[in-house]
Structure formats: structure tokens, C-alpha cells
């Protein structure tokens, strides 16, 4: 029966090809607009590390100015730590895994005189970094804790820079020169491109990860300043040592806490730490600390921009217009067929059968609209990538979204078809036949 309805539907659609094209085009456009914006919204807002995002926590301590909070919104605490606090928390080592980190700029001097020196962004961090974020290794591994203690001159490279320096070969054990100092390569990461650079969202949450990793303690010893944000509410004492003792915040600190009990313990530990520091004259504001997990952190940092949210809202309003449009056109089409429907009723077709037949016809419009819409979505995402250069990783067709597109378009067309179908089935056979 379904096959027969399909044939009938296709025939009817072909008969009014302009009207059909109009309906398909309308649905496709609405679907494309909403799916393009929804894909960006979904990929930006989706959990970048779903298997452990609830166990990874950012440490936030309110060390800010007693007279003026870090943000006009009192619930927003400083988004980074001071060197004093980051090193104290590292020394206490109360979490399952923990790492302090900041971004640095490194001049890279290749051995090969043919390759010109170039600049590279690197992350100075602790040995736990790789375990915290489950970074995949292609060669070698991270460094161990003893390297942190000894300020070892070692580095973990990412694929792009390993490609540039060593042609992509296994470079573990080889040496690279950053800013006049030699480092030994201990590991090379496999492709690692979190959609959102959640471990440090400042200076562009959609940027790629840094190209190399070096020990935090080494970077401090070599007096490398932060290439990321640095916020101070008062002047620090002169020199590098003075800066390290200051209340300036520039270090991200992540802790892995495997159970809710450990999270509660860690929170208590932080509050006790602030209490101790208060006795030393720091932390003059009311005692506040926070441990947002990955998803809470991305939300607080407003990774999904308001422009993207407005675009989602607008595009769904646009889809609604397209659907209303399709309802109207389908209604017109089905009402035009009143005579034919009356005839079929008179020949014994039940209302249920007619209902099914017209729903199939609406479904065909939906499927076609969905497929065309998918093509337009792909074009739309291409356009979004051209407009927003940093959206490369979040403006991609993704399986969940492709499935959503198709389901959405069929459901939309069925919904749009429901009312016209119902109206068509109420056609009185006698009345229709009489007018013929």
C-alpha cells in the first residue's frame, strides 16, 4: 500500500511541479538556515571531553582587590591564579591529578640553517597535563614528576611542529633549540584538536592547542613571561621575583577529582588554604573559591558567543516562516484535489487510507526538502567558515547534525502536512461529485 501511495504522491507532485519546487525550496531553505546555525551552536557548546568533563575542575580563588571585585558580577571570580597560589597548590598535591599552566612564546631555532627561525606558541605546564586531558601520544610520552622538580629541559611536541622540524619522524631523544636553550624531545602528540580549547579559553576559545609543551618549573626558571592574559589590581615589586610574589593572575590551574567526596575535600582544602593566606594579609575579600567543571567553565566563560545564540533564535523563526509557507501551499494543493479525493471516497477509500496517502505525499516533500537542505547546510557551513576564520573546527557537518537535519525536515514537513491532510479528508464525496 505504501508503495502505491508513494507512486500517487510522486505523480501528484510532478503534476504541479512549480508548486512542489516552491515547497521543497522553502523547507530546504528553512532547514539549511536552522541547521547551519544549530551546528555551530552545538559543536561550540558541546562537551569537548565527555568521558571526564565532570571530573576536571578549574581552580578559582578570589584574591582580588578588597575595594572592587574582579567582575561587576559578584559571582564571577578571577579566571586565573597567581604564581604564589598555583605553586602552593602544586606543592600540596591534594588532587588526583593537577597541573598549573600558562602560555609562552618561544623562538624556535632549527638546526637546519635552511629553515629560518620561527615563533611558536607553547604551554608551560606540569607532568600531569597529559594525563589530565588524555592527550594521545604518537611517539614517546610525557615527562615524569622528577623532571618537574629538576626543571628539566624537555619538551613534548605536537604534530605540526614535529612535521616542520623533523619531517614527522619519531623525534624522541632528539634535541630542539628554543630561545638559545636546548630541550630534549620526550614525546610527540598524535593529532589533538579539541573543538574548544577548554583548558585555556582566554585569547580565543576556538584556537588550536599550542605547538609544544615544556615544564612549568623550567619556564619559570628561565623567566618566561606569559603570552596570555596577565591581570593585576596593584603594582608588583620590581623584577621577576617581585612579579612572582605579586597578586597578578596569569596561571590556569586544573585539578582532576575522581569522586564527589574528593571534590568536597578539595573545596575544603582550598578554603582552608585561603584562611591561612588571610593571616598573611592576602585574600582580603570575603572567602570565596570555586571549582567549576569543564562544562560549567565553558558556560561561565561564554564560549558560545551571543551572536551565535541570536543567529540560532533567528534561524528557527525563519524555519517557522518556511513551515507556515509550506502548510499554506500544501493546503492549496490538497484543496485543489478535492474532486479527486471525493471520487476516491465514493469508490470506497476510507478516510484513514486517504489520510495516509496524503501524509506520504507530505513526507516526500519533507525528505526531498531535507536532502536539498542538507546540501544547503553544507554550503552554509562553508560560508560560515569563510566569514569566521576561527570557526574551522565548529562549522563542520557532523553525524548527529546530519541525522537531526533529516529527522527535523521530515517531521517538519509531516507537521506541515497534517492540517492540510486532515482538511482534505473531510471532503464530502457527494458534494464534490455533484459540482462536477
Amino acid at each position, binding site marked *: 500500500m505504501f508503495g502505491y501511495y508513494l507512486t500517487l504522491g510522486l505523480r501528484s507532485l510532478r503534476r504541479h511541479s512549480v508548486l512542489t519546487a516552491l515547497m521543497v525550496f*522553502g523547507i530546504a531553505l528553512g532547514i539549511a538556515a536552522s541547521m547551519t546555525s544549530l551546528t555551530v551552536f552545538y559543536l561550540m557548546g558541546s562537551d569537548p571531553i565527555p568521558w571526564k568533563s565532570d571530573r576536571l575542575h578549574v581552580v578559582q580563588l578570589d584574591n582580588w582587590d578588597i575595594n572592587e571585585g574582579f567582575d561587576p558580577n559578584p559571582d564571577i571570580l578571577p579566571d586565573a591564579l597567581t604564581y604564589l597560589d598555583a605553586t602552593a597548590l602544586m606543592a600540596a598535591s591534594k588532587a588526583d591529578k593537577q597541573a598549573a599552566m600558562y602560555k609562552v612564546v618561544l623562538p624556535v631555532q632549527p638546526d637546519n640553517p635552511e629553515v629560518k*627561525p620561527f615563533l611558536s606558541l607553547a604551554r608551560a605546564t606540569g607532568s600531569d597535563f597529559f594525563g589530565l586531558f588524555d592527550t594521545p601520544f604518537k611517539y614517546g610520552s610525557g615527562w615524569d614528576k622528577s623532571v618537574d622538580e629538576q626543571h628539566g629541559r624537555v619538551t613534548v611536541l605536537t604534530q605540526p611542529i614535529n612535521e616542520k622540524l623533523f619531517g614527522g619522524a619519531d623525534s624522541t631523544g632528539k634535541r630542539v633549540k628554543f*630561545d638559545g636553550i636546548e630541550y630534549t624531545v620526550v614525546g610527540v602528540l598524535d593529532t589533538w584538536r579539541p573543538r574548544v580549547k577548554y583548558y585555556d579559553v582566554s585569547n580565543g576559545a576556538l584556537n588550536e592547542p599550542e605547538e609544544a609543551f615544556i615544564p612549568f618549573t623550567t619556564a619559570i626558571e628561565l623567566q618566561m613571561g606569559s603570552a596570555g592574559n596577565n591581570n593585576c589590581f596593584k603594582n608588583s615589586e*620590581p623584577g621577576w621575583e617581585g*612579579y612572582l610574589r605579586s597578586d597578578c593572575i596569569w596561571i590556569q590551574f586544573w585539578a582532576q577529582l575522581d569522586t564527589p567526596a574528593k571534590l568536597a575535600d578539595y573545596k575544603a582544602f582550598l578554603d582552608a588554604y585561603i584562611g591561612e593566606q588571610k593571616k598573611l594579609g592576602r585574600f582580603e575579600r570575603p572567602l570565596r573559591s570555586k571549582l567549576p567543571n569543564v562544562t560549567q567553565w565553558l558556560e561561565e566563560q561564554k564560549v558560545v558567543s551571543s551572536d551565535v545564540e541570536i543567529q540560532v533564535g533567528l534561524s528557527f523563526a*525563519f524555519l517557522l516562516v518556511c513551515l507556515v509557507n509550506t502548510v499554506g*501551499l500544501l493546503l492549496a494543493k490538497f484543496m485543489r484535489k478535492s474532486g479527486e479525493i471525493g471520487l476516491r471516497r465514493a469508490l470506497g477509500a476510507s478516510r484513514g487510507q486517504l489520510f495516509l496517502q496524503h501524509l506520504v505525499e507530505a513526507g516526500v516533500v519533507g525528505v526531498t526538502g531535507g536532502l536539498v537542505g542538507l546540501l544547503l547546510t553544507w554550503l552554509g557551513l562553508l560560508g560560515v567558515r569563510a566569514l569566521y576564520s576561527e570557526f574551522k573546527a565548529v562549522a563542520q557537518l557532523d553525524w548527529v547534525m546530519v541525522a537531526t537535519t533529516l529527522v527535523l525536515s521530515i517531521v517538519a514537513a509531516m507537521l506541515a502536512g497534517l492540517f492540510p491532510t486532515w482538511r482534505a479528508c473531510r471532503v464530502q464525496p457527494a458534494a464534490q461529485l455533484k459540482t462536477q
Partner: protein
Amino acid sequence: MEIRPILSALMRSKVSLVLIGLQIALTLAIVCNSLFIISERAALMQRPSGINEADTFTVSSIGFGEGFDDARTFAEDLAMMRSLPGVVDATTINAIPMSNGGWSEGLSLTQEQKTSTAPTAIYFVDDHGLNTLGAQLIAGRDFRPDEVSERNRTTQGWPAGVIMSRALGEKLWPGQAALGKQVYLDTEKPPVTIIGVVDRLQSPWPHSKRLAEFSILVPQQLVGDGRMRYLVRTAPGQRDALMKQIEAKLGEINHSRIVREARSIERIRGEGYSQDRAMMIILTIVIAALLIITALGIVGMASFWVTQRTKQIGTRRALGATRGMILRYFLTENFVITTLGLAIGAAMAYGFNVWLIQNYEAARLPWYYVPAGCVALWILGQLAVLGPARRASRVPPAMATRSV
């Protein structure tokens, strides 16, 4: 006028009326709000930065290795650049307007106050800074060569005299001249004196609500970390050629450094506002697509009605209605439906605007957007219905005698 029969005919097909009306209502709401967002972004992007953008570019370098001498490199580089034919002037600078990266400080009027009066962007430049930027000095004077000092990690306090943007002066001392006034960049140190005021100088953060127009020029060169950034102004039309030339020459002067980020200020402006540009383009596409869909929808529905009423049209023609009357009938009908839709749409437009205000700190929709949108949609509706209506007017009176 033949409104009464139109209304009673419409009442017999309420569903179609509701559908077209709803479509027009939503279209009005979306178009008005989108146009408003577009115009706001355009206004944002059109604000002048206060500097010469057409002929300026920036280039930076990072020195590496032991014994890299920042101060000497600065002197050599600047001498080289200023001597090149076509270069108007060059300065060291730490940040570029509209680039979204820079140095900011709080300003206090008294030493005792606990919170600052206003935030400001800090531009460290030398005595060529003002000329290179091309900012317009409206009071006071430029820096003298002997006022320029070095600033490194151990430097405390601030130089005695600074130049300020007019907007910042008005914020600090409303209704008074800023020239000669004193303000604290550091309340534990002596204040700085305003020796000059420029008409306009945007900060590196044009989207900041707090300090987009607040800037201070400080006569210092940042040394000690091997990083240097220059701003160069050239004669008109020579920017791109000189940018390449200077980038190459900087590398030749000193081999132990990496020269990078040679970019024109026009490009920095483009990148600084790329989000707004993208939003404007996307909304323009949405508006265009929406108007097309709505117009096609009206055409489709009107065609359907014309077909359905062919016999009635024929009857009316047979009873003496002219072609013009039939045409007018469909145009009037569309006008009535559109008007009903627009009435609902006006309410929706304001509702949408309220949602934007509550969630995204948007501004209130100016009053004229909705009336202008209504006029546009009336015209759109009339144009869309014109084709089907003309077809209706050509229905021959003999149609009354035939069966459909």
C-alpha cells in the same frame, strides 16, 4: 469600495488567512530586528579610530639568544625606517588600536580613593608616536625627545607628562579642560600631568563598553624582553611596498631575531570587526531569503485562490465587472490580509526586541523601524499578488457558463 465582499470571502477561508497573516507577521518581526542589528553593527564599525589608517602598518620582532640588546636594536631599526624614502614617520609602540590586545590601567583623581575613576588603554610611544599615529592634537603639545625613557620589569611609577584622548578627559573632568590636570596611574606614586589632548584615539578594545575611547600615550620604550613592535606611516600609496621592504630589512639588520606580523592597520581593523561583519552578512542573507520565501508564498496562495474562484470571477465579469475591478479585488484582498498580518507582526517585532534586550543587552528598537517595515511589506505583498491578480482579470466572462 468593495471591502465588505472581500471580508466575507476571507472569513470563509480563515485558515489561509491565518497562514499568510502569520507568515507576514513573522517576516516583519524578523526583518525589523535584523535590520536594527545590522544598522547598530554598521554604526559600530564606522566609528573612526582617530588615527591614520590608510597609510600605516605595524611590524614586530622577537629577539632571541644571549646578549640581545633591545635599546640598540630600537635605535637602529627606527633610524633605518625613518631614513627610507616614502616613510613619513615611525615609532615604537606596544599595542595597536582595534587589535584586541594591549595594556590597560585604572586612573584615580586622588591618592586616597580606593577604586579607580576610569580605566584607560596605555600606548607606549616615543616622540614620533603622535605624528606616526596621525592623531589630531587639539590642545597642548607633543612629547619632546628628552622626555622619552626606557621601561623595563624593574621600572616603577610613570613619566611626568602624558597625552590623553578627549573622551577620557571628559570622563575624568566633565566640562573642564583636561590640559594641565593631574591624575594618578599609581596611587602610591606621584601623579602624571596631561601635557596634550588628542581629539580621538581608540583603545585596542573597540567592543569594550568601558574603555573603547579611553587612551593615554606614554613616552616610554618597553625594553628587556627582546620584543619590539613598530608603527610606520608612509606616504599615500606606498604602504604595501614599504611594508615588504621594511620586513626584509629588519631581518637583515639583526639576525638573532624573528620578524613577523607585518600587517596594515586596515587589515587589523578588518580583523577586529570581523565578527560584526559576519553577523551583518548573515542577517542580510536571512532577510533576503525571508522576503523571497514570503513573496513566493503569497504568489502561491494567490494563484490557488484565482484558480479556485475562476468560475466566480467569470460570473462577476458576466455581470458587468471590469477587468480593473477584478484586479483591484485581489490587490485589495492582499492589502487587507497583509494589514492584519502586520498588526500582529508589529507586536511580535517589539516582543522579539524585548527578548534581545533582556538576554543580550540590545538597545530598544527605534520607532520608525516597524512603520518602515510595514510599508516595505505592503509593497512586497502588492507586487507578489500582481501576477495572479492580472491572470484573474483576464478570465473571460464566458467562463461563467462553463463548468470548472
